[in-house]
């Protein structure tokens, strides 16, 4: 039955507790040996649908057929037995183990209790060679880049006999050249007969690499078509729906590179022409970052002026975290000066840097940003405990703090029943709004924002950026650290590129900067 699709999901419905319909009669047909992309905003139901196909989520209704055979998955183990493999956003390889041990784990293939390491390595290398890639099987996972781990996971999946490969946002943490290499591998795989399903929200990837695309919105399929019969523009419109959302408000990360936003007012070049950068609000002079093993050789010099947004680009793990820790004062540097609004705070504790005019939004909203068990008011005060006008101070004035929180909720559009709602009960977008609100409430001179849109949908990301832009209009400077180059190109006036814990260069965000930045991110050198 060669015309049967490799994967057929029919009328899948999944309702989470609280009557949240994640999938509403979703159907998906994937032809064997093709790359099929599922696109949609955050919360559109992509991850749930893939979880159902992988056996991790049980649907209320619907059925799954693999090559014409009905299957029911009780767990991922069932799905793996049927040849389905999933490569998730965050690597499932254990950091301390070598890649080889990661492959063997749970699939040991032992002979009389002894692992057959050498034989397995040979098999893995054979698979990798067929794909034209090489994987360092004997190195621990923690030493490798996201791109290398993905390659290892793909080879592992094939080694375990996968014929259907699911990849969830595989390019989220990759530099453009790495993403291209990944898709070239996937194309080779598809040509060899493997069925590839990719979940993404990057439409230019869809147009370049996929043969067929399914668009999900609010748990329903709104379109399924050959990519040759559609355009990125049409897909974007289908993704967000024909709502009140004006197209110009979309961040470029959701759109292909050749998209014409049509609203020139928001381009960084014009914005910087409108508000000429003011005095320096954050100066880094000869900062040396401490890497895992040593202090970086090349010192970093970087200045953020009032009213501008400076983006920091780089592949994950090239010193973003260390840079932020050095600026905020959470880790010792290997020398150099940090100057906030004219005050040298190189040796000051984070709290002193905060009162000098520095504010920050931590990267992981739930683990290091908010205290989920605290309410909105308490979270709002957390980094502002010196501020008597907000109701803080040695003796807390909770009624006043509650009024301040209500006002902040109104200004930033934080949707919650009251300021006493627990932060853990808020949606991701509202949690991010709360983080930004509490950073901006002390009217900082400089905001350091780490991945402020991670995991947010277009609307929530736009709200976060609008708040930052409003701050810039009032003379605040922003240092924006993001792994999403498209987002940086959309937001920043200038972009600094980190490579191996050093600053490659700072370039103005002009049209055509994208390729140069991509090259700097991966080679560490400025192309001639």
């Amino acid at each position, binding site marked *: 039955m060669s015309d049967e699709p490799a994967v057929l999901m029919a009328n899948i419905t999944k309702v989470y507790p609280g009557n949240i319909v994640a999938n509403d009669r979703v159907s998906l047909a994937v032809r064997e040996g093709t790359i099929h992309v599922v696109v949609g905003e955050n919360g559109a139901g992509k991850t749930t649908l893939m979880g159902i196909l992988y056996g991790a989520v049980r649907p209320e209704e619907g059925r799954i057929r693999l090559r014409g055979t009905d299957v029911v998955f009780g767990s991922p183990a069932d799905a793996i037995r049927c040849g389905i493999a999933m490569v998730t956003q965050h690597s499932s390889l254990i950091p301390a183990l070598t890649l080889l041990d990661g492959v063997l784990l749970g699939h040991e293939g032992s002979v009389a209790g002894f692992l057959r390491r050498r034989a397995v390595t040979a098999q893995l290398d054979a698979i990798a060679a067929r794909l034209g890639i090489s994987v360092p099987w004997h190195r621990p996972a923690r030493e490798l880049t996201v791109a290398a781990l993905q390659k290892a996971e793909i080879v592992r999946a094939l080694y375990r006999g996968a014929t259907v490969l699911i990849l969830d946002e595989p390019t989220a943490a990759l530099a453009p050249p790495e993403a291209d290499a990944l898709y070239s591998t996937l194309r080779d795989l598809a040509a060899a007969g493997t069925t590839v399903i990719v979940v993404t929200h990057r439409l230019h990837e869809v147009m370049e690499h996929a043969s067929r695309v399914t668009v999900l919105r609010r748990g329903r399929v709104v379109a399924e078509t050959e990519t040759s019969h559609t355009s990125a523009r049409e897909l974007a419109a289908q993704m967000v729906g024909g709502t009140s959302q004006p197209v110009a408000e979309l961040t470029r990360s959701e759109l292909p590179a050749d998209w014409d936003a049509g609203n020139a007012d928001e381009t960084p070049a014009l914005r910087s022409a409108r508000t000429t950068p003011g005095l320096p609000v954050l100066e880094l002079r000869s900062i040396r970052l401490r890497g895992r093993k040593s202090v970086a050789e090349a010192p970093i010099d970087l200045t953020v002026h009032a009213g501008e947004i400076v983006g920091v680009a780089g592949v994950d793990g090239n010193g973003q975290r260390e840079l932020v820790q050095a600026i905020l004062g*959470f880790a010792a540097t290997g020398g150099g000066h940090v100057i906030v609004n004219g005050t040298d705070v190189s040796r000051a*504790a*984070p*709290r002193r*840097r*905060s009162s000098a005019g520095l504010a*920050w939004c*931590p990267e992981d909203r739930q*683990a*290091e*940003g*908010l*205290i*989920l*068990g*605290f309410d909105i008011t*308490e979270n709002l*005060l*957390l*980094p502002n*405990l010196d501020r008597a006008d907000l109701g*803080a*101070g*040695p*003796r*807390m004035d*909770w009624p006043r703090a509650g009024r301040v929180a209500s006002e902040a909720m109104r200004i930033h559009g934080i949707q919650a029943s009251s300021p006493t709602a627990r932060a853990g009960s808020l949606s991701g977008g509202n949690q991010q709004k709360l983080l930004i609100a509490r950073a901006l409430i002390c009217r900082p001179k400089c905001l350091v924002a780490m991945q402020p849109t991670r995991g947010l949908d277009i609307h929530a990301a736009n709200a976060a950026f609008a708040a930052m832009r409003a701050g810039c209009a009032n003379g605040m400077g922003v240092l924006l650290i993001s792994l999403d180059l498209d987002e940086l190109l959309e937001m920043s006036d200038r972009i600094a590129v980190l490579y191996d814990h050093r600053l490659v260069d700072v370039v103005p965000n002009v049209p055509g900067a994208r390729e140069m930045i991509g090259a700097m991110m991966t080679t560490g050198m400025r192309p001639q």
Partner: protein
Amino acid sequence: MKSLLVRCAMSRQAVGLFMAIIVAAGIIAATGSNAAEALSAMFYGAIGDIPSAVSESFKSHRLVLPNEPLRLIAKATPLILSGLAVAVALRAGLFNIGAEGQILVGAFAAATVGAAWPGTPAILHLPACLVAGMLAGASWAAIAGALKAWRGAHEVIVTIMLNYVAIQLTHYMVNGPARDPSSLAPATRLIQPGARLWALEGGTNFSAGIVLAVAAAVAVWHLFARLRIGFEIRAVGENPEAARMAAIPVARTMIVAMAISGALAGLAGAVEVLGVHRRYLDAFSPGYGFESIAVAFLGNLHPAGIIASACLFGGIAGGAVHMEAFTSTPRQIAGIVQAVVILAVAVRWNAAGRADRNARQ
């Protein structure tokens, strides 16, 4: 909207107590005794014969109090203070197993200051003794806080070890350099009259310490509800990483929380020697520091809850003695009642507990 009364009645604590009574009744019946008789003896032993005390009061036109409730309060006093100590540390995410050691050093310091300087006016001497006890307990606990905050040593291990040091150190002092030669048992010299807490005659051990314990409970409530340092302690306990990123000095906050915790435990020890024993007696604590861990959990780490659970434990202890004296049931059954209460509280019977289990599957 459930009323406070309904929420209390439905709480894990109430369910636990109910289950404990049923289990205890079952065990008593299994030993061949009359469960109803034993339990009512225990109940009377805990709170006394209130109706006849009331009628006696009316007849004689003066207040007649049975001894049992006074004994209950006397027993609860150190448990309230050390229960508060455990709760303050737990709010900072620190498990202070060392309340026992902090009680001992606090008591020893208070007894030493109390026995010194004869003729000092009470207005100076008594506060000096209380402060000495609190300072001793605070410094003892701060050792564990500092090792945890600066060197990552686990506070459970450190506080357990400090318990041994405290027990042996006070044992040595009271048998050696600090021993009162005129005393038969190992004990320090008697505390000066001016440094003693007011106490009721008649062997109930009831003293003004209960006033201090309730005042401490109010102070702890104020600390967490109104003061910045209390807010910081809660933040560090809920999520130390988020607290650190919010520029809260996590290490300092941990040490302060442990010091406050130790001060409360030290006060418990000081109140015992100043109000009950009048001197430091070797090994005077029957394990208040350990029992207080259960008191804190049973009281849901809330000051009012801790007062209630300390009274419950005080009542069980008093009631058990009475039960053994008047029925054939041994008093060790009270230990089982306490244990079942704690176990029932540790298990979450509500929907949240089931959700946890489902999430793990």
